[in-house]
């Protein structure tokens, strides 16, 4: 099926481990779509600019998740790592508070870039959980986490409002 090297990849996606033989150059987004059947992670630019494909990657269990661009990161570079995608955010009782905030603030429109914003914010919240910041630095932190994400439908304002709301409403993220 391929003229490029085939490797064995071991990847944990949303808590479930997959061991697959795939081309070494296969980007993570293709692994998720073709091998795992999870299409929530979106392909848009394919060159790591728009960040719609952002997922969270942990090098080792319990490590701090790192924003990873699934469209341009070969799955071979992630071997053994643990990946969280948008499908892994909701809990058993429904969407996470972050997803709920995106809903209630009418943060998105077409929604295609939403998984990227959700994952970037999810990782920001994980970081703030460990290293809370003063509220005065929150806008800069949001910009740092989400400022490179492209949305073509909205003016970003409602995304940012939702992100502020959920962070301010989550105990332990803001140093009081």
């Amino acid at each position: 099926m391929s003229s490029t090297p085939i490797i064995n990849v071991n990847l944990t996606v949303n808590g479930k481990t997959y061991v697959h033989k795939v081309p070494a150059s296969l980007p993570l987004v293709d692994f998720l779509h073709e091998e795992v059947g999870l299409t929530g992670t979106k392909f848009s630019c394919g060159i790591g600019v728009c960040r719609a494909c952002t997922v969270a990657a942990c090098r080792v269990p319990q490590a701090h998740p790192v924003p990873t661009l699934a469209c341009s990161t070969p799955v071979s570079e992630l071997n053994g790592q643990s990946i969280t995608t948008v499908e892994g955010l909701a809990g058993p009782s429904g969407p996470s508070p972050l997803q709920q905030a995106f809903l209630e603030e009418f943060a998105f429109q077409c929604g295609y870039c939403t998984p990227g914003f959700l994952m970037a914010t999810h990782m920001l919240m994980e970081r703030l959980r460990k290293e809370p910041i003063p509220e005065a630095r929150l806008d800069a932190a949001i910009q740092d986490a989400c400022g490179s994400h492209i949305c073509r439908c909205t003016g970003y304002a409602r995304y940012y409002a939702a992100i502020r709301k959920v962070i301010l409403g989550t105990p332990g993220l803001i140093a009081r």
Partner: protein
Amino acid sequence: MTEHFVFTRRQFLKSTAVAGGLTVIFNSLPSMAQRKTTASADGKGWMGPPGKARYRIEGLPKVTGQKIYARDFRAWDMKGWPTTERHVMVLRATSADRTLTAVDLSMLPPELRPMRTVTSVDLARDGLQMPSSTTPPDGRQKVFLAALNQVPAYLGQPVALLIIADYYTYREASRLLRFNPQVLQYGPRIPPSGAPPPAPYSPPTFLTFYNNAQGVQFSQVKDGYSNPYTPSVNPVDAEAAKTRALIQKEMESSGWRLFEGSYETQVIDPMFMEPEAGLAWLDRANKRMNLVLGTQSTNGDLSDAFSLFKTQTPNSPLDVRSVVLNSCYPGGGFGGRDVSLFPLMMLLAATYADGPVRIAYDRFEQFQGGIKQLGAKMTQAFAVDGQGRLQAISSQLSLLAGGQNNYSQWVAQLAGYCGGGGYKVPRVSIDALAQPSVGVVAGSMRGFGGPQAFFAVESMMDEIASALGRDPIELREQNALTQGDFTVTGAPLQEPMRLAEICQLARKHELWTGRQDEKAKRKAKGQLYGVGFALANQAYGTGADGVMAAVEIDAQGTLRLTTNCVDMGNGSATALALSTARYLGANAASANMGQVEFFDPLGFVNAAQQPTTSSSTAKAALPKKEAAVQRANTSQLERRNERPHLKESDSTQKSDSNPWDNPRYTKSYSMSSSACITAFQQVHALEQASRVLFTTGLFPAARKLWGLAPSNPLKAEETRWEDGFLVAPGLPKLALPAIAARLHADKGVAGAMVHALYQARWVQADFTLEGSTWTWPIDGLCTRPASATSWRWHERKNVVAPTAASGAYGRSLYSPSGALVAVEVDPSTGRVQVVEVHTFLDAGRLIQPELVVGQSEGAVAMGIGYALLEQLPLGVGGAGEGNWNLNRYQVALAKDLPLGRMKLHVLPPLPPPDDHPKGIAEAVLCPIPPAIANAVTDATQRRFRSLPITPARILESLRS
């Protein structure tokens, strides 16, 4: 792997047989995803109180990553499809001035070679008929796929479809073929022949308008379509030429000040986030073409499918008897998915494949093959009298189209209609032409010609104000159109026009009144600061809008709506689901979007099926001149809106008959979905369906629950809904579920399906149901009794059709808007930062305010991109060469927007009947780019007459 999507029996009900024997079937995949998740963590779901949403109806699938876009679906997701899926790569021409000599795939090892390569030879051999929207300019090769030994018609023209066995093979093959200059081989460059440029795409738009104290002397509405450059062809053309000569003479000799200038807007890409993708499968055993698409024009795509196969003989290998379109939520659209070429690629690939095919463009391919916004070169002259009143406009608008017509001519037409801005101008001479090029195909995009024209007009208005020493907003206010004035087509403005009110609000705003102080403050910090304003009077709708909707209620009182509308993210599904509340007291629990086949019981026929005998009254009502106008208008609508699977009308016959005499006729059956047609047109249809359901179903059931005798005079309009209960004077309140239960027990009317047509007014007619006759603003009606599976058609009587003259209005619905924009310009870098935006908007009554605000903020982002960032050569060096992506094409990021300093000021709704919701998605965009340009001028004292205004241009200008 993933769950199959199982279709209900209803969704596979076969539609009526139509011309050519094709049938069409629609499914809505997202609706099925929607059913799987109805509630969020708190269990409340999307629905708020009646008429309000807690969040978007399709929101939960979007935030949880469910399959909702066409790109998400694969053949194995589709029930009944083979699970083997082929992948298709489209090879596209990268030169349009050299002969294509060879397609060389020898760099592919045998295991990566395509199973099948589809070329122009296949299409010609098999007689596949491409739709008229793919017409190249005169003199260019008239083949959809570029042929060998000919010069490709345009950059990015598809050359071949490579059908490849599976995804991994496709992936490896594409890595070897992509950006490889050896694949498509060309002969030497052919020097320009010196031949004149090709004629504009037809029809060109020529507007001539002359109004004086004695009234309108000449206009499109009064006199019909005219071409002043062919005065010998028709008397109306001669009259147009004569009128234009008079306008020119008066402009030169009346002592008015003349202002002239040339303005340019650039080609841009809609850059919706989901590159086009989809599935197609020609089920040869059943002669059925199956599609999975995210499209704005379900009807147009079906039209293309019909056109492709219509000449096939029965039992030929390409005989297709039915088309199934599985419609998905598009990941953005902005017009770029309206008559896109992508569905044609899907159809062709499936035609020649041995099973299901998938095409999933990457961003390079989307730039290379996706529809573009037309650029424009606009030269205009405005004449202003001593009091500052606009007396005449003369404009030549050349819209830069690509290598096929697509919607270019209609985009140019709307640019022409917008060429007078929001102003009262008694003398108008406007040419609006779509000029072909060898660039990527251009067509519909947000604003549809409006952004181009308003940039030119609103830039010039500021220039005039500056020259006259007038406040630019006050000058606009003085000239603003008001109710009763005429548009550039001569159409009377029937609704209150709140342009002057917008000017007044903007002029009093502190951003405007305090701009000099702020400028001085920022100057002290080394920054240039400026505030600009622009006014827009963007139309919504197409001038003759056909819409349809159905609403049904089950025995528990749950409402379900069905519509042909598509939600591109603008919130149509949510807004429609809320719009049942007015008459039914509750929101619809589900919205089946993008449906057309569902409405077949309405039983409309096309013009060719009209009776040929004419009535004397019809003759009197439709003078010959106006009939010609109507024909011209209809030909446009056939392309954009007409029901796809019917034969095109024969415009040579029956010009003296009144087609409305046939109760099965409507002028426009179905139209493409744009973001701006939901709030007024689609909501109207749904509200009327709800009204019929209430009047003929729920209210009779409520009367029975109340125990009212037939003689009791209580009328439906004397009741009202309060918190889900039906209330009437002196009677106990009734819960909707209780009424629904009684309705079903009595086998009353449980569903209503309507079609409505707006052309300057809603067509209205009388309908008789259960012995009572009502007059409703609809032109088609079916109802469904509880427990029945089929719909009952109700004949309309006493139809009040649109006036013949209104067929030439062009547009009659407007959403006035204005924008105040403040910018800061760094004189050392030339960078412009938009620091504050206030948008003023007449949106009528808001359905869900958050959706409107979201549209407005998105328009600010897109407007900033248009004014300052986005640029894409149409021809050489542009997207057609296949190497454009977001590393080169810059759209607005969050840092480019004034987060926290964007404010939408919605004018309070007027009293009924002028309080109806208005389409605003395009209206909120149109004033942003010129307001930014005017603000930059205010900051730099330099005028920029072309877009985008880049830092390099500003630096160059500041240094000059």
